């Protein structure tokens, strides 16, 4: 029995954490994640969870303590944003390399400098190659659903990798939206008991974690990690299916919105995908065959599936809410363009870097991007492969 509620994204994630009832949460507050850990610490103070909440003195220690707690054999979570994620950087790789199924909401925010507390994806995009599974969410509902599924994905024996549950800073974290949350007992049953195979707090079978791993075995351990990331794809789909039985809400690697017969399409992550849907609807009313591909699972990257979904589109615009400073477009653009190479699709792909530091993107602006795509089809010319969209000249 689920219930319809109106919550901020942060509150929704705090509710998910309460229902997951992790054994340990070690977290440090950072805007715009703060309300999440504040709300959760109230649950701890009120005895609503069994969690030991470790009020660490930094994000570096948040991730370090979470690694310790997870390695010890407990279900452990943390949450962060932006500079906090950056401070965790070193330990992100240790968490994934040590194969610890930690789940961490990340409230996406610009990385300094200059300092900016608003939404973009430069934090999570920088961590895209850290060996964490990355899930993205259009709204609070999806972020909540992703968090609960993430526990199962991470802890699956074929996976054993940590997961970041991304949501947009302020836009999703601080807006109150309607969503449905599951009954506590349903979440408890869905996530189940955590039963690690090897863990520190096992006096009968002590183990060593994090040894010096030299030329003779390190590569083999990285290979295991790469294989697990590949295996995570099927696990993600299986768990989504199971979750659908519980909620009737459907999740895959991505959402195809009016993409089947589309000629022009946008690829976007997180809340902008919602705004893009409104643009698609407006254009469809005007007779334009517009569509949207909203990425939910960015790591592992569902390459063949995305290629298949985009193969018949004539022109695609990737919306990147992060500048990679490669001079060759944003990170999502690089990935999307690369998957289309092998299938030799006759599709033009362009990149729009937008919304940095929380700059708003409106429905009309996304419509104008679709217009650009139509122009590309018409002329067969790509004037700008990479556009910094909405920036003043």
């Amino acid at each position, binding site marked *: 029995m689920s219930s319809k509620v109106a919550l901020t994204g942060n509150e929704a994630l705090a509710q998910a954490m309460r229902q997951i009832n992790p054994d340990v949460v070690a977290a440090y507050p950072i805007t715009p994640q703060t309300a999440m850990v504040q709300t959760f610490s109230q649950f701890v103070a009120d005895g609503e969870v069994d969690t030991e909440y470790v009020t660490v003195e930094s994000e570096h220690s948040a991730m370090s303590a979470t690694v310790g*707690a997870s390695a010890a054999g407990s279900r452990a979570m943390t949450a962060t944003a932006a500079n906090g994620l950056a401070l965790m950087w070193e330990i992100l790789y240790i968490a994934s390399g040590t194969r610890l199924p930690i789940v961490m909401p990340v409230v996406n925010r610009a990385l300094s400098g200059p300092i900016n507390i608003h939404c973009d994806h430069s934090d999570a995009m920088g961590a895209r190659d850290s060996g964490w599974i990355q899930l993205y969410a259009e709204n609070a509902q999806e972020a909540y659903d992703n968090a609960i599924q993430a526990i199962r994905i991470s802890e699956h024996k074929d996976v054993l990798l940590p997961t970041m549950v991304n949501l947009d800073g302020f836009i999703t974290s601080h807006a109150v939206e309607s969503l449905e949350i599951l009954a506590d007992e349903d979440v408890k049953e869905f996530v189940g008991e955590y039963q690690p195979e090897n863990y520190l707090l096992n006096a009968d079978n002590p183990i060593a974690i994090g*040894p010096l791993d030299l030329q003779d075995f390190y590569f083999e351990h990285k290979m295991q990690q790469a294989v697990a990331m590949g295996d995570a794809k099927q696990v993600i789909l299986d768990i989504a299916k199971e979750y659908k039985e519980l909620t009737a809400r459907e999740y895959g690697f991505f959402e195809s919105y009016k993409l089947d017969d589309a000629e022009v399409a946008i690829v976007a992550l997180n809340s902008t995908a919602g705004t893009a849907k409104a643009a698609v609807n407006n254009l469809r009313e005007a007779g334009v065959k517009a569509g949207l591909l909203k990425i939910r699972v960015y790591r592992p990257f569902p390459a063949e599936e995305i290629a298949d979904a985009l193969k018949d589109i004539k022109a695609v615009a990737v919306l990147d809410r992060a500048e990679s400073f490669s001079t060759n477009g944003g990170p999502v653009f690089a990935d999307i363009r690369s998957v289309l190479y092998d299938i030799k699709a006759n599709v033009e792909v362009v990149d729009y870097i937008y919304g940095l530091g929380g700059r708003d993107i409106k429905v009309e602006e996304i419509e104008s991007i679709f217009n650009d795509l139509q122009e590309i089809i018409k002329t067969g010319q790509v004037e700008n492969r990479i556009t910094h969209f909405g920036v003043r000249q």
Partner: protein
Amino acid sequence: MKLKEAAKTSERFTGGHRLCSGCVAGPVTNLIMRASKNPAVVGAATGCLEVSSSIYPYTAWKDSFIHNAFENSAATVSGVEAAYRSLKKQGKMEEDFDFIAFGGDGGTYDIGFQSLSGAMERGHDMVYVCYDNGAYMNTGIQRSSATPKGANTTTSPAGKVIAGKQQYRKELTDIMAAHNIPYVAQISPFKPQELMKAAQKAFETKGPAFLNVLATCPRGWRSRAEKGIELTKVAADTCVWPMFEIENGEWKLLYKPRKKKPVEEWLRQQGRFKHLFKRGNEHIIEDIQEHTDKRWNYILERCGERQ
């Protein structure tokens, strides 16, 4: 406990580790681990001890062991201890455990200082052990904030115009005492029973305990391997490494030399101080002596001993 009784305790840290020949971190670790009466989870900061004791696929630890990174041994063990409390509270496990975090002076005084301070302030039931060999020995003898004044290290080299490290070492033991944790000790291995006793007290303490243990590094100190233990006695007799404990705020002296020796005896046996004996550097030794005397008098006063 007499040593022959201590020898009946079970071995928790095995031979086959790859610490340098004569490294005093070896006996320090061995004796401290033997003072634990429960199964333990050991954390270690990146450093000599960690690198040498857990080279895949080998571990010298008979207990569970975790190495996370350089600067987070205390935070990592905080997480392990929190997991233990949570699981115990929920009735998911029954055994008692001891929690120990090891760090060298690099991982403790410097890069791991914040994580250590946080863990101590939060009151985790853990013992933090710093084996202080006075420089970043693991990476080739770079100076740390624990390096004594005048020492020649690879980042505070003795040169034509600068005579080794310019600063006095940081008194970390006092800083840990200022955290008002229940047990803090600064100690040396040449008194193995005192070391084991301090470790035992630390394990029996409810809440955080901190041990700062002098551990000779023959390579970094430019001293003879067989002199490793002897040098820790010289350090105590010259008062450059006073031994004391602070139990619930009470300072107590653990070793008083019968006759206080001049610091020269400590400096002369180590190649890292060799340049101090060149003509023109006499004032540096005088400064070190003066500083040592002042520090020693301060310790005596804090411990309620007559000067």
